[in-house]
């Protein structure tokens, strides 16, 4: 009993002291140990990929003598808060996954992220990455982090249903609409939708597909959500709703299972979705396939494609900073990316890497051509407070479709507040 009391007493004193420290100072961190080989502690919000990272350890140990010790977080929001808090302590991570866009800028502005300009310059010289991608990782002319993954937002479809209905892969928006009509008249719901979290993609698709500058303007605050052009696009979405083109918003069925059992024929998702579809027992190229969604406005020169890229970052004040940067450098190489593609089965950002899934390989090549324009996904392009409100409002619109203006007004009110604070 006594020893327990003493232990608790010690813990009490220590915690009380810590609380005072907590209030008094900020910005912890430890000195960089300078080591470039060994075990690197790695944090990720993509917990489901942990086995894939473990699989990659074989390759990284052979090449650069580094292996990852992965800690996965299932809740993305809590993960973000955990990482932010960790910068205040001695636990700032030597390698962690993050988001591009305003989340990255926020950390860079506070001086929390290690610069990777040298790694990028080298990679660009070697032809390992495109200049376009470099832009996504640039803040004030310098590069930070390296791309962990890249995903294009495309349309997945159930090939059996398309065959049965005699539908060819649409190459224009008109053909896409015609396909939806054919499906609907055959009693098949054309598109998947959900009223939580992934509520933005169809809006993103139609706005960027109508006018990429309009889309860009939304993310910089130059275009208002109540802009007549945006209202028109929302009304187009409403018409599609009224035509019965979208799946039941109240369904919680796993989207991959829904596509498999024919609840709907098409689903607009990121190219990481192959993994889920394979897991649900569908065969790539046989049971399902994908196409790049045609531009909504046929007058556009290039077809816009939404891209999502998740960075691997190194904290500036991490004890394992050197080790993290060494791993980042290796990560960019074709060798690492080939191994990663094998483990994970993703589109590779490095054109010199070999992609194991032919469907994803083809997608990567297609999108890289001059006929396509890659733009940042709505999720990263939109400042977080506006995004939160927008995701909710799109969700409410999807659940109970009606006059779009009230929904847009609520989003715009948040946007007004946000942009006013930025000045």
């Amino acid at each position, binding site marked *: 009993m006594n020893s327990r009391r003493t232990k608790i007493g010690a813990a009490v004193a220590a915690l009380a002291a810590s609380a005072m420290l907590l209030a008094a100072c900020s910005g912890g961190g430890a000195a960089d140990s300078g080591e470039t080989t060994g075990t690197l502690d790695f944090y990720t919000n993509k917990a489901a*990929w942990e086995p894939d990272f473990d699989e990659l350890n074989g390759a990284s140990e052979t090449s650069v003598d580094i292996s990852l010790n992965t800690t996965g977080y299932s*809740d993305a929001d809590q993960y973000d808060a955990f990482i932010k808090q960790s910068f205040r302590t001695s636990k700032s991570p030597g390698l962690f996954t993050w988001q591009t866009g305003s989340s990255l800028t926020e950390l860079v502005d506070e001086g929390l992220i290690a610069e990777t300009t040298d790694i990028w310059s080298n990679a660009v010289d070697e032809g390992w990455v495109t200049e376009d991608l470099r832009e996504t990782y640039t803040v004030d002319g310098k590069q930070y982090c390296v791309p962990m993954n890249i995903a294009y937002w495309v349309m997945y479809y159930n090939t059996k249903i398309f065959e049965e209905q005699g539908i060819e892969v649409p190459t224009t928006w008109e053909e896409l609409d015609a396909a939806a009509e054919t499906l609907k008249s055959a009693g098949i719901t054309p598109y998947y939708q959900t009223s939580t979290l992934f509520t933005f993609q169809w809006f993103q698709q139609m706005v960027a597909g109508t006018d990429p500058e309009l889309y860009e303007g939304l993310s910089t605050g130059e275009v208002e959500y109540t802009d007549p052009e945006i209202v028109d696009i929302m009304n187009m979405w409403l018409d599609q709703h009224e035509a019965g083109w979208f799946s039941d918003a109240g369904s919680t069925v796993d989207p991959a299972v829904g596509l498999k059992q024919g609840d709907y024929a098409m689903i607009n998702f990121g190219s990481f979705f192959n993994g889920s579809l394979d*897991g649900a027992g569908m065969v790539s190229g046989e049971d399902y396939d994908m196409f790049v969604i045609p531009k909504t406005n046929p007058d556009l020169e290039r077809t816009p494609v939404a891209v999502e890229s998740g960075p691997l970052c190194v904290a500036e004040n991490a004890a394992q900073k050197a080790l993290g940067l060494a791993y980042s450098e290796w990560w960019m190489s074709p060798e690492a990316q080939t191994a990663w593609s094998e483990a994970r089965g993703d589109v590779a950002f490095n054109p010199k890497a070999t992609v194991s899934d032919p469907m994803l390989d083809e997608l990567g090549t297609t999108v890289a051509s001059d006929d396509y324009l890659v733009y940042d996904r709505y999720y990263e392009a939109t400042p977080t407070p506006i995004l939160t409100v927008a995701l909710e409002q799109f969700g409410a619109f999807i659940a109970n479709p009606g006059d779009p203006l009230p929904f847009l007004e609520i989003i715009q009110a948040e946007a007004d507040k946000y942009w006013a604070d930025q000045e």
Partner: protein
Amino acid sequence: MSRILRTSVLVVFGVIWLLPVYLLIVNAAKSPLTFTSTESWVPTDFSLLGNIAEALQLSGLGDSVLSTLIYALVSPAVAVLVGAAAGFAIVALRLKHGFAWFVVIFGGTVFPLQMVLLPLFDGYSRVGLFDTQLGMILVYTAISIPFSAFVMRNFFTGVAHNVFEAAVLDGATTWRIFARLYLPMASSALVAIFILQATFVWNDLLLGLTLSQSDNVRPIVTTLAGMQSTYGGAQLSTVLAAGVLVSLPTVVLFLLTQKFFARGLALGQY
């Protein structure tokens, strides 16, 4: 009401109550490759063991089991005793301002746990408790105390005060009265609190997520939760299978301890 009627009502409602559990098991047993959501009630195949194996492989649950077991046993046990001691101090020893002190302890449960997570993480990493088993035990104990104190305080108010006075007249010390008289007579309540809190700790997600990172410190559900993700990961039936697996120990615990509650522990005899 007649016994037969009572029994039939209980059986009917019991069956209704178990329907979701039936769904859980039936669907956890379906192969992810042939899984559909259109025949929820019909068992199609039996891949439960395969799904459990898949879940174990995906999440590396094995490492978490031992530490979770320690947390789920030690913390509730300490919390039950600490809570009983607090109840004893307030009720039997008539601590001055007892109600105020009681509110202080009970107050520990009124705010949402999410609110103390980040300060705890900060404090823990500064004093070296982050990602340690001691740190996890301490926080689980603290979390369990208010409930324990609440139940025990109310339980002891049901004990006539002359029980205490009689023991004093016999020359017993307060410690002896607590350990030999009050604790034994509260055994069914103590066991109930212990089981409920052990279940809570076993199933905790939030604290484990925030205050630990190593595989051998992280509690089991935190590890498990990592399996499901928008970015690929386990299929529904695999996650359900993992849910069944993780729940087994607590279900067994509930079944085994049923006899404690069967005993009618009458206070009147004291």
